C-alpha cells in the first residue's frame, strides 16, 4: 500500500483543497431563495396608517419589487442602517417598496425609533417575530429581496452597506 504513496498524498491533498473550497460556514443561505416569499399581512405602525391603510404585507400581485427589512429598535446595526434605507426610499420609492418589519420589540420603542430617524418607508409591527420565523430569520437586521412576481431573490443577514443595497436594487430592477 505504501508503494502508492504519491496517490495517497494526492488524495489527501485533494480532500484538503476541497475542504478549503467549501462555502463560508458563516454565510447564512436561505432556503427561500428562488421560492415564493411567504405571504402575510400585519398591522402597520401608527404613523403609516394614514397613507398605506391599517395593514400591509406580502401577498399575491405585488405592484413593484420589495426589500423586506426586518429590524428592531434595540438592534445597534439597525440604527446605522435606518438612515441609509430612508435615503434609498426617497430616491427609489417609485420603483421599489422598502417594507420594514419590526420584530421582538415594544411598539412604543419602535415608534420612538421611527420618529428619531424620520423613517417614511412603511413598517409593520410583529412583536413576537413570527413572520421572522416564517422567513427563517437568524436575527436583526435582515433583508429579503423579493421580485415583482413575489419570488425571493436574495437574503442579506446583517447590516447593509450602500454598495450592497445598490447591488440588490440593480438585481431587482433588471
Amino acid at each position, binding site marked *: *500500500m505504501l508503494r502508492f504513496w504519491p496517490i495517497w498524498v494526492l488524495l489527501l491533498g485533494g480532500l484538503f483543497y476541497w475542504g478549503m473550497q467549501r462555502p463560508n460556514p458563516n454565510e447564512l*443561505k436561505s*432556503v*427561500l431563495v428562488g421560492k415564493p416569499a411567504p405571504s402575510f399581512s400585519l398591522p402597520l405602525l401608527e404613523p403609516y396608517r394614514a397613507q398605506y391603510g391599517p395593514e400591509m404585507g406580502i401577498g399575491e400581485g405585488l405592484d413593484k419589487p420589495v426589500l423586506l427589512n426586518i429590524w428592531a429598535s434595540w438592534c445597534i446595526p439597525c440604527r446605522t442602517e435606518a438612515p441609509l434605507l430612508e435615503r434609498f426610499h426617497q430616491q427609489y420609492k417609485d420603483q421599489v417598496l422598502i417594507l420594514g418589519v419590526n*420584530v*421582538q420589540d415594544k411598539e412604543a420603542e419602535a415608534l420612538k425609533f421611527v420618529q428619531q430617524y424620520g423613517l417614511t418607508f412603511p413598517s409593520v409591527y410583529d412583536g*413576537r*417575530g*413570527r413572520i*421572522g*420565523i*416564517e*422567513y*427563517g*430569520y*437568524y*436575527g436583526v437586521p435582515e433583508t429579503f429581496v423579493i421580485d415583482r412576481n413575489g419570488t425571493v431573490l436574495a437574503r442579506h443577514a446583517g447590516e447593509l452597506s450602500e454598495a450592497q443595497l445598490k447591488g440588490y436594487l440593480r438585481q431587482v430592477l433588471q
Partner: protein
Amino acid sequence: MRGWGTGDRGVGLLARFLALGLWLWALSLAQPTPNTPPPDFSPRVFEIAGELRCPVCQGESAAESNAGIAVEMRRIIAEQLAQGKTEAEIRQFFVERYGDWILYEPPARGLTLWVWLSPLIGLGLLGYGLWRYLARVRARVQAPIADVSEEEIARLEAELQTPERKS
C-alpha cells in the same frame, strides 16, 4: 411564661429566629427549580425544541435559550401540538424555513451521508489493511519452506542420517 428561665426576651428572640427561618424557607421556595420547563408549556414542547437549534444562539437549542426567537419557536411547537400535528410534521415546518441546519441531528443524505458513513468506511479500510498485513506475515512464515529446493532437502536428510546423529 418565665418557667424556662429565659424570660420574655428569650421568647422574643426565639420568635424572631422562627420568623427569620420562615422567611428564608419562603425565599427558597420562590427560587425557580433549575432545568424544569416553565408551567406554560408541556415537557413535550421542550423535548421537540431540544432537537432544534436556536437560530440566534451559539450552541444552544430552542429549548435552552431564552432569546425571543426561541420562546416564539416553543410557542409555535405548543400551538402545532395542540392542532394535533406530529413531531415529524413540526420538525418539517422548521426545516422548510431554515433547512436541515436547524436540526441537531441532520438526516443521512447528501454530504451528511458521508459523515454518517465515514466511521464504517474507516473500519472497512482498517480491516482490509490488517488482513493484507496478516496475509503477508503468513506468507513470509511459509515462504522459506517452499523455497528450499529438493536437492537441498536431500542433502539435509543425508546429513541427518550421519553415524554421529544415529548414535
